[in-house]
């Protein structure tokens, strides 16, 4: 009896703390949502509250002005392309580090190399990269941008996937070898099918990064038709004008697909992250 009462009290206090933390996020987001349905004239008199006159047309305006159908399609292409390339390459590398040669010098060297890679600010290499891309005729192409995004997201992807593969039981691989599987088959038939949860996680993190990326997109894409979604927000605000209603509506439209994706895959998302990540 006493224990359950204790537990109940514990659960209530848990919820109170969690709710307070959640409110620090919900309240600011609510202001964004309110602003997205607020008519322009109301911003001066009612900056924080729910709009007196709801104007859903903000979404329509932002959709049309921002050419959303097109930019979303472009971003979707970029995300898909990056997912395919980045996850393929990263999982191969992770397989090599986790299964083929887990204790080799290479593992440590590559680990350090990729960590250092994470610490380099884009401003340092964007200019020479642009020149290389021009010579390879990759400027202003989706494939050029996909290559960049794949490389930028590879370090973290390799870490995540490797940390999962490290935990796969070695016996499975040994059994497969006995059956005469080649190294490549070990990868495609054993390692990949067993680590699918981590691909959801990594995929989500990579998708987020690509969907929201701006600097490389605006530098490497020059055609109106190829612009991704992240550039649109910037065209609603500048020195002269900050159209809060349109930007807020545009922001929410931009976040919505990702939020839905996260809700759909939430359980699997967590399953893909493991604590083994830092061993070895």
């Amino acid at each position, binding site marked *: 009896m006493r224990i359950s009462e204790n537990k109940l009290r514990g659960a209530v206090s848990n919820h109170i703390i969690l709710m307070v933390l959640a409110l620090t996020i919900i309240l600011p987001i609510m202001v964004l949502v309110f602003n997205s349905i607020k008519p322009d004239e109301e911003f001066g008199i009612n900056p924080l509250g729910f709009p007196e006159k709801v104007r859903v047309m903000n979404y329509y305006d932002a959709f049309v002005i921002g050419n959303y159908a097109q930019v979303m399609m472009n971003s979707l292409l970029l995300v898909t392309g990056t997912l395919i390339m980045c996850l393929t390459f990263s999982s191969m590398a992770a397989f090599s580090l986790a299964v083929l040669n887990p204790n080799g010098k290479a593992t440590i060297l590559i680990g350090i190399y990729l960590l250092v890679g994470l610490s380099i600010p884009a401003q340092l290499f964007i200019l020479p990269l642009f020149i290389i891309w021009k010579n390879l005729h990759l400027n202003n192409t989706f494939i050029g941008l996909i290559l960049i995004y794949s490389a930028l997201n590879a370090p973290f992807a390799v870490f995540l996937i490797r940390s999962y593969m490290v935990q796969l039981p070695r016996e499975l691989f040994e059994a497969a070898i006995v059956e005469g599987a080649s190294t490549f088959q070990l990868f495609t038939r054993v390692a990949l099918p067993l680590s699918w949860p981590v691909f959801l996680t990594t995929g989500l993190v990579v998708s987020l990064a690509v969907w929201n990326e701006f600097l490389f997109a*605006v530098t490497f894409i020059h055609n109106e038709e190829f612009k991704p979604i992240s550039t649109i927000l910037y065209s609603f605000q500048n020195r002269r004008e900050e159209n809060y209603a349109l930007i807020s509506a545009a922001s929410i439209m931009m976040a919505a697909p990702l939020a839905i994706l996260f809700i759909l895959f939430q359980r699997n998302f967590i399953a893909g992250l493991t604590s083994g990540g830092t061993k070895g």
Partner: protein
Amino acid sequence: MKVISKSIFYGIITTSFLFSTSAVAKTQISWWNYSNEGSGLNAALTQYIQDGFNSSQDEIELQIIFKEGEYNETTRTALLAGVGPDLVSSSGATYVAKYVEGGFLKSLEGYAEKFGWSDKILPWAYNTGVFRDELYSLPKNYESMLYFYNKTLFEENGWSLPTNLAEYESLAAEIQEQGLYPFAYGSSGWPMTHEHLAGNYLNTVAGPDNVYKAMVGEKEWTDPEFVESLELLKKHMRAGYWSGSLENYYAVGWDDFSAQFQNREAAMLQIGSWGFEIATGLDDKSDDWGWAPLPILTEEGGEPNYQLSVGGTLSINAASKNPDAAAEVLNWILSNKDTIIELTKSRNFGEWLMPLYYEEADFAGDIEPKLRDYLVDFSERTGNGNYGYTTWTYYPPEAGTHIWKDMEVVWAGDISVEEFLGEQQKLWEKARKNNELLPIAAR
């Protein structure tokens, strides 16, 4: 699943090569411009310039591409790699100087001669595009710094425009007593507003003659006139002349200070000629407004001057495959004054006010009379030699960023005005040594 992803992958590869193969019957000319979708700039430029030019002939096809974010940087990166648009626009002479130094721009000297551009553009503005004795850029927009004031509010309180320092300070004090800000202004989203104020004080306290001497190296920036100018600015900034306090000045942006001016929270607005856009906003309210040149802020006052400024340029990329066609576009713009006036009118004269030889008759129709007065007064006064210098048209790059960026350090009290001007002097000497000074015509 795999088949699908594969086909998407090939789809990406093929679409990514598609862009370069659109119909090539006409000569294609590309132009990058900064993007401002929200205020309709993109639509206006497309309509007046792109469509206007394309329908005027059928050999060249112009396409204007709008770049979000810091378009000067995107442009620079592209130029450096030897690509980029045929027509290069920039925010001012500072960028043009760098592009010329790198050899990224084509000299327009031949075209200027062929088309007679020097007869179409006001001389002082034409000269801001001349580097190493050759023309490299055309001025897209000219600007100057002005006062706007709420006329009705002034009449109600019996205030009059100041003509010297003492009047300026007592007026500000009176306005503050009423619980208003003397000036609506703020730097949020555009910290370069600091240089507007710095330039105003240098040109109205030390005066254009001294500024000119310091720019050409006959005086030092650490001389007492300049120290006095910036000390005065610091004093007024800290007294809350602009939006009440330094912190609020930093936090207030374009929309906010427009509202301050339009809603009687501030009595005046010290801003560039692009401020006509804000002032005309008062027309919807019951208050009347007026404008005036900046008063001279010395004991005895003096004849006001207009600071010269070119706020945007157009050039031809040295890597352009069709420079002649690009020059045709430029010439079409310079030759179609009516279109340009329509365009700048649609931008409330804040953009695309090209420094051409306008006549009264050009502004027939429904132009705001106060604006016409300004345009006429500007050419009269500057014609008489009463002109000053804006920092963003005449300062070399590093001194040009230092003047606004490090001004905050002065206002914060972290360094003194003397130290600040000492750094300015060093940056000017460095620029002079490296031959990086911008064109400055003799006074």
